């Protein structure tokens, strides 16, 4: 990875530029357009929330950034380095942009500590012993002391998400890619997780690319909220959330928060209806 040509202020790493990206799937002859001329700029160190109905193609975008699959045309760069672009092979998945998956992808056969310590050892950055030390410290910081030697199957799903986020942060990524990580959680656990995520974010300051279909979650967490159209996916409305960080749950009852919800909920609702009518399934 070369250094970014134009150094940003404050946060210097993790700027994502999505330029005119198109992704067409051709599963069995019939071409399906998942992403349609989508452009979006995410500044370094920003929390960018991607809101859209289920199956609108948000995950396609995330997978392209992560390096799991290529795009049909357009360009995605991370700090000026091209991740994917027309006419060249995509960059392989790497520790600079780690994904936290929708239903979680902690390795069930490893203890939580072994899961968290996994990345740096794989990359040869730390020895097993050093990685364990670092993992213990990071887990304690994230309120995960006491579950280190449990298996993921032994702790609550909220805890598991937190372990997975810490596992991702252990790789010292430029970007954290979160694919509806709290989808399966009940709303009470969710609110705890939101504050925990912000707390982790304030300590680590990475760029966060967060996919959700929950508008309140998006406005509560994000610096920027991109409301996407239903398939094919592109930004319908991009909203700068001018509520200062650090935020806590008091924000939810603030006037500004309510105004922002009012401003955007119609756009989200429109897309949800479109998605419902076209009968899109998960994707």
């Amino acid at each position, binding site marked *: 990875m070369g250094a970014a040509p134009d150094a940003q202020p404050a946060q210097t790493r993790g700027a994502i530029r999505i330029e005119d990206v198109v992704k067409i799937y051709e599963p069995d002859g019939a071409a399906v357009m998942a992403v349609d001329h989508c452009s979006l700029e995410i500044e370094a160190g920003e929390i960018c929330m991607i809101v859209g109905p289920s199956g609108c193609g948000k995950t396609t975008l995330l997978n392209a950034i992560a390096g799991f699959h290529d795009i049909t045309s357009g360009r995605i760069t991370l700090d000026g380095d091209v991740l994917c672009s027309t006419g060249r092979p995509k960059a392989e998945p*790497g520790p600079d942009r780690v994904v936290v998956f929708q239903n979680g992808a902690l*390795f*069930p056969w*490893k203890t939580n500590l072994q899961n968290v310590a*996994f*990345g740096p050892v*794989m990359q040869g950055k730390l020895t097993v012993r050093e990685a364990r030390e670092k993992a213990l410290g990071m887990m304690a910081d994230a309120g995960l002391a006491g579950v280190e030697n449990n298996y993921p199957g032994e702790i609550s799903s909220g805890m598991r998400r937190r372990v997975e986020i810490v596992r991702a942060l252990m790789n010292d990524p430029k970007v954290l890619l979160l694919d509806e990580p709290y989808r399966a959680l009940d709303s009470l656990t969710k609110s705890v997780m939101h504050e925990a995520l912000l707390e982790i974010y304030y300590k680590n300051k990475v760029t966060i690319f967060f996919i959700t279909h929950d508008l309140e979650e998006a406005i509560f967490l994000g610096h920027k909220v991109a409301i996407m159209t239903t398939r094919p996916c592109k930004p319908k409305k991009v909203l700068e959330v001018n509520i200062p960080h650090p935020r806590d749950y008091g924000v939810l009852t603030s006037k500004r928060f309510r105004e922002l919800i009012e401003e955007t909920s119609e756009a989200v609702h429109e897309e949800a209806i479109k998605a419902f009518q076209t009968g899109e399934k998960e994707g």
Partner: protein
Amino acid sequence: MAKRRFSTKSLGRGLFSIVVFLILWELGSSSKHWIGADFFGPLRDALGAMGFKKTWLPWIGMIPAPSDVLRAWAGVVGDSGYWQSWYKSFLRVMAGFTAAMILGIPFGLLLAVNRTAFGIGFPVFEVLRPIPPLAWVPAAIIFWPTQELSIAFVTFLGAFYTIVINVVGGARSIDVRFFQAARSMGSSRWDIFRRIILPATLPSIVVGSAVGMGITWEVVVAAEMISGGGGTGGNGLGFFIWNSYVGGSYELIVVGMISIGIAGFISSELLRALGKFVTPWLRLR
């Protein structure tokens, strides 16, 4: 932390059912009626009225009573030939089973991770798989230089197919997110094999082995019966049963059968314990 599945309550239930079974068996076999004690008298009369003859129907009275079996057992328990039979069968089961694990697990993993290997290997495997191991007995006797090897080979086949099928199925159903996560975190291909595919397939290997072990016992006994004693004495529990039948010692037939039951039970318990040991993360469900 792990809960013990083995409680006094379930032990009590198990003992109770065994005791009841033995009592019914004893009553049935000591009775001169055709189905147990005269419990089924009315049924018998009804069947008789429909024209069924007594000789057409099974007669529990023909089976030796558990007390007789126990007496016969006490007679052979000090006999080295009886233990030789145990030893021989165990040896064959272990030989066949171990060979099936050593060859089956890598073969299954190869089929699962390599598309070319799957394309070449799987069709042949699928044609050979439906052939029952016992159908291999004559060919095995012709092919292998010694009878011992041919029995071990047939035993091996019994476990091999099950293990391979389970390994292939297990490895192919690994969640793609595990691979994606591992690749994101910088794992090499070898790391992915060793740290993702291998542990994720382990539960399927354990299941395949447990099923395979059961089949191995079925096969070894039948193979011993078919191939006959063959020279040296004490040729396995299967041969023990067959020999008792030929010699007209019905009590010893049952002794042999129960011995196989116990032997199979011991093997599966050992395997289950080993399986739990290698997959500690599954213990907590």
